[in-house]
Every structure is written in structure tokens, then in C-alpha cells.
């Protein structure tokens, strides 16, 4: 009986297609990725059913973390410079141009020091700034509420025009008094409209909002 000969097939697999897929996915993720911006404080925001997007223009952001530390972030370069110049002149902090420039940069990720410590924060190097633990802007009560002064100064340099978007970003575990003190700082300055930064969440089924959304109606304001 003749032996059945099994042809020896090569097991070489062409990896080109696989490679193509891998890099296609890679390029997708690279383009879709938005890196988290630097933040002075680690904050985990609560969830809400709101679906509005976050405005980025003319946005004044106040962050408060669970320890009750408060930070301000503002991205308008021109106004930021004017803001520090005015703070400097009004309070006699004695900031040099160089220190103002450092503070300008630091404000992109958040400034959270009392006015008395602005100078020492401004004299720090780039590396030191990233490591420094800021104590937060004092907001304890209406007497010692420096956030109120920040906002008053901001309104003053802007000739009374309110920033279009005032955003508040708070940690889940931040206590309520911190939140209300921050709100107070704004309402005392005549700003009553806020945007709270939250993570998206679906409307629970069987509720008014769920029915409204599934029937295709727009959310009423």
C-alpha cells in the first residue's frame, strides 16, 4: 500500500494585513485622543444628565477639590496680564514682570494661593511650579473671601462686563459650604449664572426627561 504523502505546507503567515489593521487603529486612537490638561488639583466631578458642551471661549473656571482648596483658571492672555497688573497695583504685592509672566503661565492649570503668596509662587521655576502644593484661595467666610476680590478685579479690568462663561468644577466629596462660599463670591459681584462641569450620564428610564428625549423633543431650558 502506498504511503499517503502529506504535502509539507509552509506555515508562514503573511502579517502585512494584520500590521495594517494595527496601525489603522493606532492612527484612530492617536487622532481621537485628547490629553488631559494639567490641573493643579485632582478633581472627580459628579455626573449629570446634562448634554451641553463645555464652552472654551472667555471661560473663567473655578475649581474646588475635596479638601476645600479653591483654584482659579482663566485662559485669556491679554486679560490675564491686565488682571495681574491690577492686582499688583491695588494690593502692593510688588510683582516683577518676570513673576507676572510665570503666574500667567501657572494660571492655565490653576492658581490657588492667597494674595500674600502670589509673589513666592511667581518666583518659582517651571519644574517647581508643577510640584508645588498650593493651599487654595481663601473663601472661608464673607470677611476673608479672596475669590470675591479676584472676581471684582476681573470685572474692573473688563469695565464691568461679566465673563460669558463662568464655570465651576467641584469634586464629588467637596463639602457644601465650600460650594456655597464660591457661589457667594460670584453672587456678591452680581454674577448669577453658572455652568457646573459634570460627567455625562443617561437619563434613567421611565422618567419625564427620558420620555422627552426618546420622543425626540429638545430639552427645555
Amino acid at each position, binding site marked *: 500500500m502506498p504511503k499517503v504523502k502529506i504535502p509539507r505546507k509552509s506555515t508562514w*503567515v503573511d502579517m502585512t494585513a494584520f500590521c495594517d489593521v494595527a496601525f489603522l*487603529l493606532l492612527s484612530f486612537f492617536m487622532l481621537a485622543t*485628547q490629553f488631559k490638561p494639567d490641573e493643579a488639583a485632582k478633581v472627580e466631578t*459628579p455626573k449629570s444628565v446634562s448634554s451641553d*458642551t463645555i464652552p472654551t471661549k472667555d471661560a473663567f473656571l473655578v475649581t474646588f477639590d475635596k479638601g476645600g482648596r479653591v483654584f482659579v483658571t482663566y485662559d485669556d492672555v491679554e486679560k490675564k496680564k491686565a488682571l495681574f497688573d491690577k492686582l499688583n497695583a491695588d494690593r502692593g504685592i510688588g510683582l516683577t514682570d518676570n513673576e507676572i509672566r510665570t503666574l500667567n503661565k501657572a494660571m492655565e492649570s490653576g492658581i490657588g494661593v492667597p494674595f500674600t503668596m502670589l509673589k513666592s509662587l511667581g518666583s518659582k521655576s517651571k519644574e517647581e511650579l508643577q510640584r508645588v502644593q498650593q493651599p487654595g484661595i481663601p473663601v472661608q467666610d464673607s470677611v476673608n473671601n479672596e475669590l470675591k476680590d479676584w472676581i471684582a478685579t476681573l470685572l474692573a479690568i473688563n469695565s464691568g462686563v461679566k465673563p460669558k462663561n463662568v464655570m465651576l468644577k467641584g469634586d464629588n466629596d467637596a463639602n457644601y459650604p465650600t460650594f456655597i462660599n464660591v457661589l457667594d463670591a460670584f453672587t456678591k459681584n452680581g454674577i448669577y449664572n453658572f455652568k457646573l462641569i459634570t460627567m455625562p450620564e443617561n437619563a434613567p428610564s421611565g422618567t419625564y*426627561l427620558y420620555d422627552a428625549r426618546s420622543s425626540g423633543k429638545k430639552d427645555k431650558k
Partner: protein
Amino acid sequence: MADIDTGGGGGGHKKGPGVKKSKKLSTRVDLTPMVDLGFLLITFFIFTTTMSSPTAMKLNMPDDTVKSEDQNKAKESGALTIMLSKNDHIYYYEGKLADDGSNFKSAIFGKSSGDAKGIRDIIIEKKQKLGASADNDLVVVIKPNEESNFKNTVDIIDEMTINGVKKYALVKISEVENMLIKTTEGTAK
């Protein structure tokens, strides 16, 4: 790499000894390491990426410089006061707070589960009771005390959006209400 060594070694000696083999170099490139690298980078980007971008929730505060005569008066039948305390506790009463505190009740977040009443069901019931006039008459007053946290505050405001409550306000808690919460929590233990 991408194949299994099937042996067969060297491809035979057809030309006999002494004849120099002209080795044909394969143009096939082994892409396995490249695929490995690709997937490694994909994994990295998947982990660092933040897919769900945050959203903005609107909050409007009242102008507290307005004189009290000018403020909107709420109907007693349509008023619902919700108080927040520590550990996600919710307390509520409808209309006016009774002198003996008999209509002061406790609730939990979200839907009812078991004996505990959910704040969502309470709001829905209240809306049904008011019927067609609910949009106009229902006024929810939210009073977090100093022990509640930011998450609870956002959750309860969110609950207003979820249930389509048109009128609600964030108000400072009164001394009496806070005392009631404290005593309830004291006895609950």
C-alpha cells in the same frame, strides 16, 4: 517568526559538493514585531484617552439683593422642601413644616427601594397630585446642610431636570430644620 520551523533544512544539495550555493534571499519581511509594536501603542492610547468629554450643567442663582416683597410667592400646596445631609441622607416635607415636625420625613436618592422612599417617586407623586397646574405651582426648595457634599447637591438639581420640575431654588437651611435633621440622625442610630 510567523511560521513554525518545519525542518527540511537547507533546501537540499542539488548541485553536489564543491558547487557554491547562490543563496536566494527572500524579500519577505517578518512583520510580527511591527504588529506587536502597533498593538502596544494602541493599548497605550486606549488607556490614556478620555473618551467621554465633560458636559456643562446650567445653574442660575437668585439675586439676593431683591427685596422680599418682589419675590415670587409659592403656593403652600405646591411647595416641596428637600433637605440634604451627610451620608446621602435626604429629608423632605410638603407645604409648611408642621410645628410638631409630623410631616418631616426621610428619603433616599433615586427610586424607591423596599421601605425607603426614593426622592424621584416623591417628586413624581407630587406632580401627579397637582395635575395640570404642576408646571406652575410646583416649587421645590433645596436646602443642603453643612454636612452634605457637592455630589448630593448636583444630584438633586439633576433630579429636577430628570423630572421636569420648572421651579426650584437652592436656599440656606433654617435653624429649625437643621435641628430636626440632627435629632433624627441621633435617634436613627
